[in-house]
């Protein structure tokens, strides 16, 4: 039996945290990442930070992509990072997107969110960022 030498594609859990239901962005990004060769799991709406981390561990995801449009990003994004710390899963990379003002982006990066993408970001930019971050991970 031939040995499978192909690199396993990076698994990305895409999650919508917070109470809002604006899912156009998250779906477009999820589809684009899938088309770029990543394995994408979309959680659906209204995930709490605990639910997101549970799902990421269960799915063995290396990356969590968070989307939010309700304005609660300063509470919920760091809560996901904290929950990863609590579960000793800090190797999972967290990035996010949504309506996030510039100052908040700086603050969130300090709190451990690896990258943030705001409205108008070309999909390719997100894919390029992932490829740079995971050069060995397909996609």
């Amino acid at each position: 039996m031939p040995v499978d030498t192909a690199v396993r594609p990076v698994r990305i859990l895409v999650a919508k945290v917070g109470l809002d239901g604006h899912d156009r962005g998250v779906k477009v990004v999820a589809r684009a990442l899938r088309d770029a060769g990543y394995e994408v799991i979309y959680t659906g709406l209204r995930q709490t930070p605990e639910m997101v981390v549970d799902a990421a561990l269960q799915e063995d995801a290396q990356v969590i992509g968070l989307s939010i449009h309700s304005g609660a990003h300063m509470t919920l994004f760091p809560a996901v990072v904290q929950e990863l710390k609590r579960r000793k899963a800090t190797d999972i990379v967290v990035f996010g997107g949504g309506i996030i003002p510039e100052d908040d982006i700086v603050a969130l990066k300090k709190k451990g969110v690896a990258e943030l993408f705001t409205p108008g970001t070309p999909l390719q930019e997100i894919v390029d960022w992932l490829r740079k971050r995971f050069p060995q991970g397909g996609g």
Partner: protein
Amino acid sequence: MKVRARDAKEVWKEEFESSPTRDDGVETSTISGIPLKPLYTADDLPKRDEEMPGAFPYTRGIHPGGYRGRLWTMRQFSGFATAEETNRRYKYLLANGQTGLSVAFDMPTLMGQDSDAPTSRGEIGHCGVAIDSLADMETLFDGIPLGEITTSMTINSPAAILLCMYIAVAEKQGVPASALGGTLQNDILKEFIAQKEFIFPPEPSMRLVVDSIEYCAKEVPKWNTISISGYHIREAGSTAAQELAFTLADGMAYVDACLERGMRIDDFASRLSFFFDAHIDFFEEIAKFRAARRIWARWMRERYGAQDERSLKLRFHTQTAGVSLTAQQPELNIARTAIEALAAVLGGTQSLHTNAMDEVLALPTDKAARLALRTQQLLAYETGVANTIDPLGGSYFVEALTDEIERQAEVYFKRIEELGGVIPAIEASFFQKEIADSAFRYQQELEQKRRLMVGVNEFTVDDEEPMEILRIDPKLEGEQVARVQEVRRTRDQARCSKALAALRKAATGTDNLMPYILESVRAYATEGEIMNTLIEVFGIYTETAVI
């Protein structure tokens, strides 16, 4: 030698074909993908009797007088932080010439939960005002005479509760429910389809909608009981024709549900209202508004046998497209919004919200909110566009596009019917997939620069000055939590428990729930308590996520 019309067209065609065309690769179809001819002529005009404003099928407007009779209502959607802060903003907007109120609630309120629920953390007052009980509602409308102003409330799953709170505040002001004017969004179907702020499953959700329509027909006769909304469908990424078709299909589903309840069509149809997006593709939007009126009038008369002329008239509110705004060079949003607002006015809207330039970043500042309102005032009073009724009626292009959008909508009605109606189509994820496909197609066109967004994928600048934005003080979260807990501590608990128990019992039967909700509200039951009581009986809905 005199050239006949036909010949002139042929001459033009030859000249057009031999002249150079732009090679920038940018699509020449509408933003929704409807192919356009370079020129429309008399040959494109449909053969039909001349249409007139105020007459069936109302393509040219529902009023014979257009804006000569009355301008549209300038209704800026607004709400943030606490009831007290928002009350201050309302008074500011009214003092600046706004003519109606429109309440934006925060996410916990929209999702029917109190500010002290664990999942409200970080969400309080962020995208609207936090309302937990009648006490907050009293503060929200303090000093605003509810008998003299009309108010629109954007709320869906918990719509009946917020309407009851409004009625109860009016009672305290000495204003009877029969004198209240305004609009409740109350459109649960589009929540399942697009905005996703659903709580109960479709069936009990529809019951609550019909309960409120039935109750208002008797008790609050001047209230628009529902605002059947395409806005969120469009913002979720649909095309113009999808927005129109899905919205009108929802409208017919509500009509069917009310008829099933035993109501007579002319007893409720005139209080149904609509809400559309005004996107950036100027003519397509105007055509959409015109087609909406024609389709609705025809279906109401032919399918439902409505006799009262008011039942046939589609009245609508418009909001300019949030999705068309950009975080990059945000001042450009003023120009975009003005163009979109113009389309709404030329399409004959009854009321209008113009987005503020900073809404892509946060809720608007006082200054940005005023600029947005001023844009409408400028349109109304400087440009002269309100002087002539349906000024684009008879335009070869606009008439042809109106017909094309109508045709596309009819195709969708057939497909929805084949799927068994709106609710089965929701359960089969039909709308959700259609919208996601359109959104993805558009995004790809942007990526490939077949569509340009100024400042985003072309004409960008490297260094942008950050814009002043509205910040919600994190302190207010604790204050709002304390406020709702104070309400629970100080109310007449026996009356409150009794009201909730009666509501629970009624929910298991078939009574109209409005009187029970109204009594619960008067007893200062919180929104979350009322919703949880109903959840115990109705259960909650979970959607199948499709990407």
